[in-house]
């Protein structure tokens, strides 16, 4: 057993740190310092900075622009970016449709789409969920009918199409064979140009007042049949293939480390009876309790990383990362709110002498963090899956 990173990995970490220190623009740095909300323009600017460095899609094959990094280096890169509070790049192109195209796409599709995902020229969104099909994706109702002219005519509504207001393309699941025997069958994986006539996007605010979600309406949208990825009616295979990617990033340990440090920094500045909360045994104990959870999650993540580095399939150790990581991120933000006490009510208002800049964004982040146990498969669904696949418990 050895918990130390190899020297070449440590050296790589230094390179990433140096890169971030020198390349992150001041305005992004300012947002990062307070963990505020990045504008889309800022995110894409950071995308291009990483692209120029060759680090925007570290997990892609080198021939398609990947960085040629091993899993540990990719992990380190991601962790350092999280620790620095760098903008979170949109995952829909880089982590979702990109890898799917690499695995299932035709050469033409790869050549058409991958370079622009990489460069950030084309922004993507995901059209899976529908108002009636959330956890139960197979019950989706959006239809795509062959019009006999080489096009599919798409009708339906997609929801949680995050980033759709900025997106050039949407990858989505549509029902191409309504007569299929099982709901999972008869579904195709389709790429839709968001500028097509009949596409309407309605952005929604979250409870954290960030404009994250959209409803996307599709009304007689004509999509060329060559935009089907993988076999016609065979989209379910692609939908399921997405779930296994880059498990070690899902725990977001870097973000939680950063968030817990912020709690400590706020606690060092928050006085009760003239004494910083950080010197009060009650608050020290509460912070320490989350520090314990963080360290456990960190080692757990390393174990999953080690398996990945060895080329092994994700084992049981990786199955708990999403549950524990999402719960921890909520707990840390809730503790931050508790530490702030009366100031927890602050809602975007600027810092003053009694409200430290670190406190400005806690409230909205705390609200938005309620999503972490919901998106990407609710934690209830995660537990169903572990019960069945990992523990082998019987299904009724």
């Amino acid at each position, binding site marked *: 057993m050895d918990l130390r990173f190899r020297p070449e990995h440590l050296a790589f970490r230094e390179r990433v740190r140096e890169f971030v220190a020198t390349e992150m623009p001041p305005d992004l740095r300012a947002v990062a310092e307070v963990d505020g909300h990045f504008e889309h323009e800022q995110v894409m600017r950071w995308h291009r900075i990483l692209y120029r460095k060759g680090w925007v899609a570290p997990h892609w094959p080198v021939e398609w622009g990947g960085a040629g990094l091993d899993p540990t280096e990719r992990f380190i890169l991601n962790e350092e970016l999280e620790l620095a509070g760098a903008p979170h790049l949109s995952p829909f192109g880089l982590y979702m449709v990109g890898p799917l195209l690499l695995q299932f796409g035709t050469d033409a599709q790869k050549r058409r789409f991958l370079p622009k995902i990489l460069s950030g020229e084309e922004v993507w969104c995901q059209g899976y969920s529908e108002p009636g099909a959330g956890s139960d994706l197979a019950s989706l109702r959006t239809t795509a009918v062959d019009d006999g002219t080489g096009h599919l005519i798409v009708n339906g509504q997609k929801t949680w199409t995050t980033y759709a207001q900025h997106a050039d393309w949407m990858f989505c699941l549509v029902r191409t064979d309504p007569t299929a025997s099982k709901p999972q069958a008869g579904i195709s994986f389709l790429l839709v140009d968001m500028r097509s006539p009949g596409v309407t996007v309605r952005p929604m*605010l979250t*409870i954290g007042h960030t404009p994250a979600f959209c409803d996307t309406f599709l009304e007689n949208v004509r999509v060329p049949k060559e935009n089907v990825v993988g076999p016609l009616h065979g989209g379910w295979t692609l939908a399921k293939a997405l779930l296994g990617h880059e498990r070690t990033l899902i725990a977001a340990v870097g973000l939680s480390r950063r968030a817990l440090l912020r709690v400590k920094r706020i606690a060092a500045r928050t006085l009760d009876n003239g004494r910083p909360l950080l010197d009060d045994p009650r608050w020290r104990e509460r912070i320490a309790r989350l520090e314990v959870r963080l360290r456990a999650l960190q080692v757990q993540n390393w174990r999953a990383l080690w398996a990945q580095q060895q080329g092994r399939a994700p084992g049981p150790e990786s199955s708990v990362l999403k549950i524990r990581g999402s719960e921890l991120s909520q707990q840390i933000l809730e503790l931050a709110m508790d530490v702030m*006490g009366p100031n927890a009510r602050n809602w975007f208002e600027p810092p003053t002498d009694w409200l430290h800049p670190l406190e400005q964004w806690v409230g909205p982040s705390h609200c938005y963090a*309620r999503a972490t146990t919901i998106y990407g498969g609710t934690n209830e669904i995660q537990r169903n899956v572990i019960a069945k696949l990992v523990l082998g418990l019987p299904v009724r």
Partner: protein
Amino acid sequence: MDFDLTEEQRLLADAARRFVRHDSPVARARRMREDARGWEPDVWRKMGELGWLGLSLPERAGGAGGSMVDVMVLLEALGAGLVPEPYIASAVLAAQAIRHAGDADQQSRWLAPMIEGRTSLALAWMEPARRYALRPEGTVARREGNGYRLDGRKIWVDNGHAADALVVSALAPDGPTLFVVPRSAQGLAVTRRRTIEEQPSAEVRLDAVRVGAEDRLGPEGSALPALERALDCAAAAAVAEGLGVAGAAFALTLAHLQTREQFGVKIGTFQVLQHRAVDMFVELEMLRSMAILAAVECENEHDDTRRGAVSAAKAQLSAGGRLVVQQAIQLHGGIGITDEHDVGLFFKRMTALAVLYGDETHHLERLAAQPSFLEGVDRPAPG
């Protein structure tokens, strides 16, 4: 012992629920988020006409002379509608401070128009870096001529941006003292600040604000007991409102479980979600019990009983109330995270109620500081 509402209280609850349904559904609270004041004078006046603003205030000041139980009944209903008018800030917190510290004339002067809904009040007591400390240290009252000069700063003054007059705690030569400062006073600067519950609060600066001796509530040095009594009433009121908020979030959740389908069945058939709903229900029941306890005891003259009951109830709100609204969002899934769904508004209002008038840590500490906490504990002699 009696846990039934009186006939009047039942009518009050009915009226309040009707009011929410017809005059102030959650949609109005949602709309008021865009409003600079955050609430509507017309509605406030109507609440005055309905007799709600003086429910627990003395009759001689124009109030109904009722109890905080009446206020509890009202606020549970208003909480379910997220009614944005500053009921607790003006009609409980500031009003009770004036009631407990002011003489009859002062009570009539400041409470009567507020009770009629023609004015609103605010209490400025919190100061930077002092958390929930009662004693004003950053605001000073110097004697000057026949009156006082006030200097200092207050934060989290709810309804401070709209109030016609502010009750301000300040350190006078003979100790902490309450003053009433009209909104129009020279040297009073009020900065509106948004809050997570999207009902405005304010930062208040007092820069050589002059008030007369007649604006001092009670003798110098008398502020703390009145302030504490007012805050206990406000905390009890917050628990009542929180009960309404949590109850409404729970009702939305239950309806969602009974209608939303996934995998071909109502999601309310899933045992895990059923048990989660039961856990929410259990917390709600506990919260109802605590709201009753706090409402009954928050005007108790016996310090230990009052403090213990109110602090226990407020701590329960912070723990149990938050659990209910957090799980309400979780069980709603994705739509629960959108600003368009009401459940998020309940979540945010509860988040605010949890820290208003003392957070969990503050109230647990206060509970443990009461003599009754150690009743029956024979402490061994040291050494």
